[in-house]
């Protein structure tokens, strides 16, 4: 990783987190989606008991719901990638610097990815902390279920990264307001997946493993598309 890329990442992250409004908004969404996930979990536990098996089965569905928080958080920073630069008229100067297209794209992507993964870790801390404290089911017990560990450690982070990539790619061509639509679309994708997992009568492990296998090339393809389609001229034309 070169220095210029990391400088862009560092600047994006510090700009994002230096805003008090951003911190309050993220705290609000953390509480909202944390509470929603925990509420759903307590309902399942009340009905079927607090065994490790019940908890892991419900987590398989609920983690996708919890992932809406990091997607939302990363969405906020993804919007800063190009639409905010365009709105505050800093984009033309940035593009005039001796940075390759890959450096600019990667710098912006990394900032959003770090924010997204950090948000996800925070949400896991809330959910798994609640489970450990209330149901005396350890994290090791939860992750011993292969389907849940694939969901928690592979599908959710990959999905967050994929949606970030999608937001950044699209955001280089549209306005900040329109970019939020991509965020909302991302939330619908996660909710759709949540419903699909809950209603389809298929083996959880098979579904999760299949989805994880599909998501990896999708992320790679999006990264390649993002760096290849990044075009200074079209960005300048849209100023």
């Amino acid at each position, binding site marked *: 990783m070169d*220095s210029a890329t990391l*400088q*862009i990442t560092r600047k994006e992250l510090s*700009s994002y987190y230096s805003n008090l409004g951003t911190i309050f908004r993220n705290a609000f969404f953390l509480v909202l989606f944390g509470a929603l996930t925990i509420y759903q979990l307590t309902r399942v536990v009340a009905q079927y008991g607090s065994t490790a098996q019940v908890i892991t089965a419900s987590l398989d569905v609920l983690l996708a719901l919890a992932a809406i928080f990091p997607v939302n958080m990363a969405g906020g920073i993804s919007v800063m990638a190009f639409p905010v630069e365009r709105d505050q008229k800093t984009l*033309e100067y940035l593009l*005039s610097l*001796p*940075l390759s297209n890959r450096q600019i794209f990667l710098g912006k992507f990394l900032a959003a990815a770090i924010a997204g993964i950090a948000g996800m870790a925070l949400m896991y801390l809330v959910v798994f902390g609640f489970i450990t404290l209330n149901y005396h089911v350890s994290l090791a017990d939860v992750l011993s279920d292969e389907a849940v560990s694939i969901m928690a450690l592979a599908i959710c982070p990959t999905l967050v990264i994929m949606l970030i990539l999608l937001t950044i790619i699209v955001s280089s061509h549209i306005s900040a307001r329109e970019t939020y639509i991509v965020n909302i679309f991302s939330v619908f994708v996660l909710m759709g997946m949540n419903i699909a997992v809950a209603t389809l009568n298929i083996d959880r492990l098979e579904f999760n493993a299949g989805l994880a296998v599909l998501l990896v090339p999708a992320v790679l393809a999006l990264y390649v598309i993002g760096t290849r389609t990044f075009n200074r*001229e079209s960005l300048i034309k849209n100023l």
Partner: protein
Amino acid sequence: MSHYVVCRLSFVKCVYKFKVKELIEINDLTKMYDNVHGIHGIDFEIGDGVSLGLLGRNGAGKTTLVRALIGLIKPDSGSAVINGFNVITRPDSVRKVVGYLPEVFGLYNDMTVYDILDYTGRLYCMRKTDRSDSIEYLLDRLELSDIRNMKAGALSKGLRQKVGFARALVNDPQVVFLDEPTSGLDPIASRGIENLIAELKNDGKTFLITSHILPEAEKMCDYVALIKGGGLIASGRISDIKKKYSEPTVIIRLQDEASAGLAAKLLKTMLPGVETSESTVTVLGAGLDKTMLTVNKKLVEANIPVLEIHRQEASLDDVYFRVMEA
């Protein structure tokens, strides 16, 4: 403008001389937008330590030309070489040796003035000491030291313009592109920028400046290129352009309006372009010094007392309007 570079090798005392090309060489540069010419057939060369003013009306193609030279847009044909790097094939190398102040630019409002300059230096991969030295010099030179810790969002338009100018110079560029550099600045700040440009030109930096304020362009630039409809219609040293496109005027100040009337009547019989205004007679297009002597002699012979007679050079404004309206 030809330059020779002298290379000295430490282990053997010898001097090589070879001709180097101009710092900026543009040849038949063309860029189309949806079958409409943004710029077409642009040709010019600029050497070290000079400033060229790009003048033209809004939409003439000045910004398109600057963007093409920085590699922000790709020309359709022609070539442009800056410091030996082709802007079409090696835009990243070009961007390393240029500084840029866009016409419409923004600053990161949540960052301090120092942090903005420091971030720019970091993106140029400058070493910490070089970065710090450059920033301190610019803060001092542009009188920005007092506001170094202020957030950009709290700055006035003039101060933002100065910070934008400092940002364009952080990397100690060889070529600086300035799009309307004095826009929004008060006269003292404008003078400061003009002086800094003059000082940096002495250090060998080359400036390419677009401006709508012609008197300021005249002060800041050695050369001008007039652009109309995307094409270059005139270019060269300002004094040469003035000679070529506009002839000087002879101004004769007389005792009163009646004398001016008589003088005008007399001069009209021998010269074209004679005009009167109160007690002054103006002879337009009097390009030769001989004209002034002839005029003076005729008036003395006719007993018309002359208080003052002098030649007035055409301003860049005069040339601009004459060329643009042609």
